[in-house]
């Protein structure tokens, strides 16, 4: 297997546009109460969402594609993708509903009728249009695990020789259908999300996009590209149990973590940092905590976790890539950002959520993403020599 490294990062979320805004926000553990959606027609009990400040494309066409292009172009510039033969560059983007918002605006006469798909999934194509003729532009869903799968599939494309560089990630933009469906399924909370808190009340969705540039270590070295971290492995699994609820046994999420570590040539004793899926729903968090407790035993009380969704919300299709960016930056800077304090830790979730900055010196970081449809993925990241 080739060594795959991350050489570029791009992000858009409620903390602002750009990786610096993202990193500064998480380093400050800058939480906020959710926004009320700027959509008068969303007649739902909890019309709450974390919007991207200053550029929420609520009244424009294709907000998911716009966010994708913003994050993707930042990642491409950061990774100097422009110096790579575009024929050897591919794009993979995951999302839950793509540009569903565009269709809703079209129904209201505020945007042209959409073509190609309903919901439209042209995020990867939109970014590829900025690159030019290239090695592929694939838009996938896999719901809240979408960007994790996009990243893992991108690594496989490189391994298979289909591309030398892949810009992979995911995106979510506000859509009425998503907020309505989540309301109907009872998954949303009325206040900012508090994963692993005894009083957690549910998810708050968030807008945004993230992108990472992947390439082999040899390719990066040959062109003098800086590597933030190594994508050392991924583990894929599917609960095949329930359309929306996690399998309480946690069997398949444990398998995803195990396979990611095995592919990384590591074991549970090597894990130094985890970005859990941790959405803030009762069942999701307790299931994940139990699986991690089973996987790591007493060490779970010592492994620092980062509660990213407590800060930026749940970016659904973009969740995995935001966790990946966080882990890559943690290795790059040698420190894990602080967590917002819990009101009351849930004794059924015996996890370690340090509220101060934690040094990170080696080991393996796991980034977990789980989704409707039973889709699970764990990514294993490692630091790179300076």
């Amino acid at each position, binding site marked *: *297997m080739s060594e795959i490294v991350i050489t570029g990062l791009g992000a858009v979320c409620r903390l602002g546009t750009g990786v610096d805004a993202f990193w500064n926000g998480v380093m400050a553990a800058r939480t906020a109460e959710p926004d009320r959606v700027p959509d008068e027609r969303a007649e739902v009990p909890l019309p709450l969402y974390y919007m991207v400040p200053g550029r929420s494309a609520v009244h424009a066409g294709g907000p998911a594609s716009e966010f994708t292009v913003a994050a993707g172009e930042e990642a491409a510039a950061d990774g100097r993708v422009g110096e790579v033969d575009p*024929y050897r560059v*591919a794009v993979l983007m995951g999302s*839950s*509903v793509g540009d569903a918002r565009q*269709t*809703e605006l*079209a*129904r209201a006469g505020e945007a*042209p*009728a*959409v073509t190609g*798909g*309903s*919901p439209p*999934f*042209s995020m*990867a*194509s939109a970014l*590829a*249009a900025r690159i*030019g*003729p*290239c*090695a*592929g*532009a*694939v838009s*996938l*869903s*896999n*719901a809240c695990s*979408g960007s994790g799968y996009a990243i893992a599939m991108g690594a*496989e494309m490189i391994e298979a020789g289909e591309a030398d560089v892949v810009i992979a990630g995911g995106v979510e933009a506000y859509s*009425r*259908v*998503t907020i*309505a*469906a989540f*309301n*109907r399924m009872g998954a949303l909370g009325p206040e900012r999300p508090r994963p692993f808190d005894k009083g957690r009340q549910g998810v708050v969705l968030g807008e945004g996009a993230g992108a990472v540039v992947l390439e082999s270590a040899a390719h990066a070295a040959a062109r003098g590209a800086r590597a933030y971290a190594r994508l050392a492995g991924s*583990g*894929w*699994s599917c609960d*095949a149990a329930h*359309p929306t609820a996690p399998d309480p046994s946690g069997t*398949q999420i*444990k*398998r995803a*973590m*195990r396979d990611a570590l*095995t592919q990384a040539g590591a074991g*549970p004793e090597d894990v130094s940092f985890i970005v859990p899926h941790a959405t803030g729903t009762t069942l999701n968090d307790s299931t994940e905590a139990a699986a991690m407790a*089973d*996987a*790591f*035993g007493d060490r779970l009380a010592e492994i620092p976790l980062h509660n990213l969704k407590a800060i930026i919300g749940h970016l659904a299709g973009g969740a995995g890539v935001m966790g990946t960016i966080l882990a890559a930056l943690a290795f790059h800077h040698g420190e894990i950002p602080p967590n917002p304090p819990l009101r009351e830790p849930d004794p059924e979730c015996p996890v370690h959520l340090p509220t101060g900055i934690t040094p990170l010196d080696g080991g393996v970081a796991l980034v977990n993403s789980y989704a*409707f*449809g039973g*889709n699970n993925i764990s990514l294993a990241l490692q630091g790179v020599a300076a």
Partner: protein
Amino acid sequence: MTGLHDTTPRASAGTTAGPAVPTIAASARDLVVTAIGTTLPPAPGADGWFDQRAELGRGYKKLPAACQYLLSATRRALAAAGGGLESTPEERRAVAVGSNHGAARIHTEVDAATTGGEAHLISPAAAPYFSPNLIAGRLAIEHALKGFSLGVHTPGTGGLEAVHAGLRALRFGRADWLLAGAAEEPPPADDKALALDGTPEDGAVALVFEPASAVAARGGRSLGTVTARVFCLPPAAAAAEDGPEHARRLLAAALAGLDLPRLPADGVRLITDGSPVADALARACEGRAEPVTAGSGCLGPVRQVADALGAAEPRLIITAGRAGTVAVARVRPAPHIPLSPMDSPTEGS
């Protein structure tokens, strides 16, 4: 010893123990199609052709039609597959499905209910299917496909991309058995927010892929092989003066990835939507591609693959979407693919 240490040897269908983690497991030639299932209307645009209760039984009424079709097509494929699913451990079974409009109706209905003050009336059983990956996810539940589940939705090319991504994951050892295909249903005709390219598609095609060695070990039958590649020629680049040259070079690279030194003299089909992208591909094919009119979704190209598996000679299926995505599938029907392991190149990990 913790729960992350897997001490249980993995069974694998008819082969040595399967790899626990990705590694180059088999050449593309080692994965063969063992069954095809189709659930398609008797004629384009037919109404009332699918009786979900008769086809599937109770408990499926609230699912999107595309999901019902896929479940039905898969049952038909499994009935013809000769036992590969049952002999494969649940964690080594996988699914990859393409769809462009499988969630269209639920989106339209949820939006109408929400803007009409009736969000509380949305069926809890139907609501999850706003997420289009549930089409594959429901199939995973039905048949305990725990290896992985993928939903791919790129306009026009999502079906072939799903096949390609699923096969690639199998070659990296993530599973040993794959159900890949596409499913579509017509979007609501009264939803004025949608402007379809081409005729609405309706139905599903399901292809079962397994390692040739496993099929041979149980005395099973191969229908042939499918390999694929993708690339992207953005519309602006396609329409530029050098668009055809880009198309020619990208196509040549895709063909090389499919072990083809050049475009075959015959057996080439180009699924075209009449866009500048498709036109550039047509010119790159230098008149050797038989044009096939694209439908509005991503089912047509997979249907072409299924048809090609029943043909006498190999075929190359090229599909180009107006947003620039292109997928190329090389289909070699049996007996063009010997099942003998002696005919398969050996690759190291």
